[in-house]
């Protein structure tokens, strides 16, 4: 196309922006919005017809669950229609992928390539697995035969995909994304403890926290506090600033935290302690994890891997790891009377104080306030009211394109949270959000 033509086309594109107007809404309008918001793409005529039928006649979704539908314009109608959109493969490869991708990197970029963290969450949603398992279970999804059965040779590669899952690179998922594989059809459930995946002990697996991508983002370098911070941020929806409480016991604050930064202990007593008192008590859970890579040959850590070892010797030597001091023993002399990690135990001091409002043990399971390892800490976090609330808030934002802004929105979040906790099924939250956020009557 010639240059002048291109300019004309561009100008014309602007003109077309804004031609949409609303006069008399039909259910078709609502179905189109529901489909746009859930599947990310326009529905074609056949899909709109399917949604109309689902609305009034009910719909059996791809998991075999019936959604009975209801009168046109009713909530039951829209929920049933929403499941038509949920069954669209683009719900998984576009909407879910882009909702989850920011959770898997510190920069919170949506452009993060597909990885095992994202794929595992997508798989959990597809198979209606209890969503709390994202922080607790020995679970992993690879691109394979599409089975939800971990005994069904899950690592067999689909046609056209050459890179198998590797604990040392992301090629498997990158290729699947580059070639736009249908994740709904190909994601296969397996376990992190499998020799063909991460090959970590069963007890070491803790959902997405112990995926390769989770480790690459949050167990890399540092002190593993990043895993705690970003798990709180991504799955309880508040950064540590929100949780600051200087009144909690200070006995688990580690030795690497200066009690007098720059010679001014006010900074510690008024700020640092607010996060570290609670956080350092809980990061013991991650004491045995590291993301090891060769910082010289692979400075971007592209070929690193998750390593789990139950001791505090120095990190592994090259080619992975640099033989440096164990990350839980760094800067131990900053405050020699601080806590010295001796195992992977954790304790939750935030069950009391202002952070009791997180809603710990929200399902009254009698969960202990202490434990060992990442999975039990994951259970502690996943069984909070804020965890459930956070998941539905993210769904709400994905579907409604806004955070809750007023009392009506917050009530809807509360309702969705209560419903979510009844089975921890994220699809249900999508259908409820889509129903709530239909086009307002003009």
């Amino acid at each position, binding site marked *: 196309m010639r240059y002048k033509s291109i300019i004309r*086309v561009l100008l014309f594109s602007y003109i077309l922006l804004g031609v949409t107007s609303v006069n*008399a809404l039909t259910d078709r309008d609502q179905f189109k919005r529901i489909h746009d918001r859930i599947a990310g793409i326009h529905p074609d005529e056949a899909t709109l017809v399917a949604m109309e039928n689902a609305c009034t006649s009910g719909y059996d979704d791809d998991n075999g669950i019936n959604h009975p539908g209801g009168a046109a314009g009713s909530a039951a109608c829209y929920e049933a229609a929403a499941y038509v959109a949920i069954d669209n493969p*683009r719900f998984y490869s576009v909407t879910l992928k882009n909702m989850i991708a920011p959770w898997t990197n510190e920069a919170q970029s949506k452009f993060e390539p597909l990885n095992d963290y994202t794929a595992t969450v997508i798989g959990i949603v597809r198979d209606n697995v209890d969503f709390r398992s994202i922080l607790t279970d020995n679970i992993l999804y690879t691109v394979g035969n599409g089975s939800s059965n971990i005994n069904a040779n899950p690592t067999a590669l689909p046609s056209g995909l050459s890179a198998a899952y590797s604990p040392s690179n992301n090629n498997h998922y990158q290729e699947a994304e580059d070639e736009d594989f249908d994740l709904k059809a190909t994601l296969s459930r397996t376990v992190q403890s499998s020799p063909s995946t991460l090959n970590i002990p069963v007890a070491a697996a803790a959902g997405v926290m112990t995926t390769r991508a989770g480790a690459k983002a949050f167990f890399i370098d540092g002190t593993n506090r990043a895993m705690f911070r970003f798990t709180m941020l991504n799955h309880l929806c508040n950064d540590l600033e929100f949780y600051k409480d200087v009144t909690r016991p200070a006995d688990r604050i580690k030795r690497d935290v200066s*009690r*007098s930064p720059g010679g001014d*202990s006010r900074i510690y007593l008024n700020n640092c302690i607010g996060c570290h008192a609670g956080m350092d008590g809980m990061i013991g859970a991650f004491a045995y994890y590291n993301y090891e890579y060769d910082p010289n040959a692979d400075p971007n850590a592209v070929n690193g891997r998750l390593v789990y070892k139950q001791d505090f010797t120095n990190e592994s030597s090259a080619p992975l790891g640099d033989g440096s001091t164990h990350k839980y023993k760094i*800067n131990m002399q900053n405050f020699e009377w601080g806590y010295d990690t001796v195992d992977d135990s954790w304790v939750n001091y935030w069950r009391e104080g202002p952070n009791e*409002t997180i809603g710990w043990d929200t399902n009254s399971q009698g969960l202990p306030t202490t434990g060992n390892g990442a999975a039990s800490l994951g259970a502690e976090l996943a069984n909070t009211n804020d965890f459930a609330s956070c998941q539905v808030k993210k769904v709400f934002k994905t579907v409604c*394109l806004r955070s809750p802004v007023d009392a009506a929105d917050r009530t809807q979040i509360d309702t969705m949270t209560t419903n979510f906790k009844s089975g921890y099924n994220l699809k249900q939250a999508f259908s409820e959000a889509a129903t709530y956020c239909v*086009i307002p009557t003009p």
Partner: protein
Amino acid sequence: MFYKKLTIANMKTALLCMAMALTLTACGGGESNSNGTGTVTGGVFGCGSLEPAPGNTLTNDFCNEFWIKDNMQNVCANCHKETNPPFFMAGKDSGDINLAAQALLQPASSGDVDFAGQLIVDLANPSQSYIVKKMQNNHNCWASPTVCADIVLGYIENWAGDSAGGRTIQLTAPLNANPPGGGKQFPATATTPTGQPGYTFEELIYNPILIPYCSGCHKPNSNPQGPLFADPANLASSYEVAKSRIDLDDPGSSRLAVKLPTENHNCWEVDMPNISVDFPTFNPANYPGFASGDDCADNAAIIEDAITKFAEGIPTNAVDPNVFLISRATSIPDGIVASGGSRYEAQQIALYEFKTGQGTVAYDTSGAGQALDLQLQGPVNWVGGWGISIDGSGAMARSGASNSKLYSMIQTTGQYSIEAWVAPNNVTQEMARIVNYTGGGGNKNFALSQTLYNYDSQVRNTNTGLDGEAALSTPDAEEVLQATLQHVVTTYDTVNGRQIYVNGELKASGDILAQGGSLSNWNDSYTLVLGNESGAVNDNNLWKGVLKLVSIHNSALSQAQIQQNYNAGVGEKFFLLFDISHIAGVPTQSYIMFTVSQFDNYSYLFTDPKYVSLNSSIVNVNIPIKGMRIGINSNPAAAGQAYLNMDMTISTNGQSLSPIGTTVALQGGPDTDEFYLIFEALGTESRTYAQPTYPPRTVSNLPAASDIGLKTFDEINTTFSAMLGISTQTGNIPAVYNLVKQQLPSSEDVKTFVTAHNIGATQLAMEYCNQLVTQEVASPNIFSSAVLNQNATADPSGYIDPILALANGSGMDTQMDVGTFATGGTVPDANPTGPDTTFTTKSELVYLVNKLNSCIPGTCSDDATQTRELIKAVCTATLSSANSIIQ
């Protein structure tokens, strides 16, 4: 009960506590001669060559650590060799050194009744030695009395340390073991009146200050900033959180008041005409500097005033033992001087411990040679618990130019060590001189510097530059230097060159450059400067931070010696004994003992809690202890409680209760702050302390948000794919998509839309349409071959209608107003000329087609080639329009 400990002195406490009995008769008499007359020539005696030789270890250590020192040889020996008793310098020229040592270990025998029974030298408690008091009273001192006393005390401590491998400190019951004096405790609720009507937290602090000026951030919301003490929806929760930011005993020290002026923290402009409305209880007349133009100071005054009025009405009550299970109180002045251990100082030639705490001189208390005292210049401030803080432009501690002690003593050995306890202010300063033996302008004999996370060591020798470069540095990757208190030593000798040790560990070595060189090119006129370059203000090399000790040695300290000095610690420390004997189920003379020091200007350090019974017959006990808190003045310390989870049974005398130490905020200062311990259970008693409850956090409304948003990158790509039925993997589409992916919207927020989004979408749409038309991918499903091959001026509805149908759907109101075609593919308003023209999608597309066809018959022809261009244009315009980009 005895504890094997070594000590450093605390003169003030020792003076307060000491009972003295003996007067050491001075040669020359009186308490004068403060200018001193000692001329030091360096050590010339060898203890091993004395005749008779020291007969035992004690005397041998006495000789090495005390008797042979320059000050003793050149000053004290003038009288105490054989003229005036006690003859503790016997053995110099004549006499028996074994008798000299014994002469010091006797009680003073006459004269000074205030010191009755005091040992002349008390190896168990060096600071209580009579000879130290004598120096303090200006007895023939060769420098200032304080300096002389410190020097002699250091000799005794080293003697004691060497002789016994450690000194014992006898613990004694504190003189004042009273119940805590108490103070003001917070009212029960935020609305509890505290005196005058309306004087509540809510009405004095929350409503007029916190809500208007702090709730923008310090409340639960989409981007909250803790602590959340200004929640408009939750007064009770705000009150609980604010408590830790309010000091009832000293309102001006409240964090709420201090934060704004010290950190320039979101200060607000006071509306002066309405000040009596905004702050009805505030009286500006009480704050002389008010309204002088400093918003932060004005804000602090208003906050302090409100807290003052809040606190004034709260009665001062003793801590109620029925409510709190408490120990007796104690304080720093009641403490027993402790220490960390003995330092290795055999070849120390300058020592700065910064003990004086006032004035403008940092004294060299090494006792070696002519004292190399430092003048404090610029913003250098004293730090509590011994230390100075180099705080800003032009700050430094600098020696006089005429003292060449360092030069001469280091030239003698060809080796040196710079040792310092430092707390750098930050990890961003570069080429910042911590210890600098300098001639200015970059010239130096040696330096210890900071560059970001590294310590650097500079030395001038015959292999390096006159500026001491190239420096030896700690490894970048290890980030050894931290903005916290660290012990750092750099050594130099000709074999190893420079080495750097941090916290006792070797962190930099292999100094090939400096190895084999000599110090022959040193300059003897250089000055010792801490924190800067010499001479004119040169803030390019300013180092900001705290120095708690600086020492120069004329030897390269060994790893073991450095480790010894690291283990010895720094600063003054005390044993505080908290009496718990009055609690049921606890034996008499029982104490919880902490080692306490002033950590910096703002906090105390509590470490090493032990159970101690002063009844030495008690060995085994059975005392349950649970939930221990540290109380300071009227309340438990708001932050830093590290023993809340203690839950154990004490079984033996001397049992350690925890390896954990903690810091608690300083309030009035070490002379006045009172400490006590609070327990949930101890012995057979217990108390229950109610925890505040926190209602659910509520959030405020956010601005109304748009009901529509943008499709994001993947959604746009897959929408194009779905509309045309063309795979995302077709032809060049993946390449174009990867090219424009990050140009497309990443946020659904419609307010984030920018032109670049549309251009990116257009580029991508163009490629999809190219595949549709040029490659004829999926085109048979959309329009016939005849349309694809028709002339350019033929009816365009054959391709416009199918494309619009794919993009638009049907039966909806939220779709494009496509309009209708007239016969022949024209629309009435396809060539708009006036402002009132009605547009439809089709009219715009036809207008586009007509415009593109204006090239006929110039640069294009009325043929199928041109038609395909038209179709691509129509397709691209339709795909990349708002219809596809907005959801």
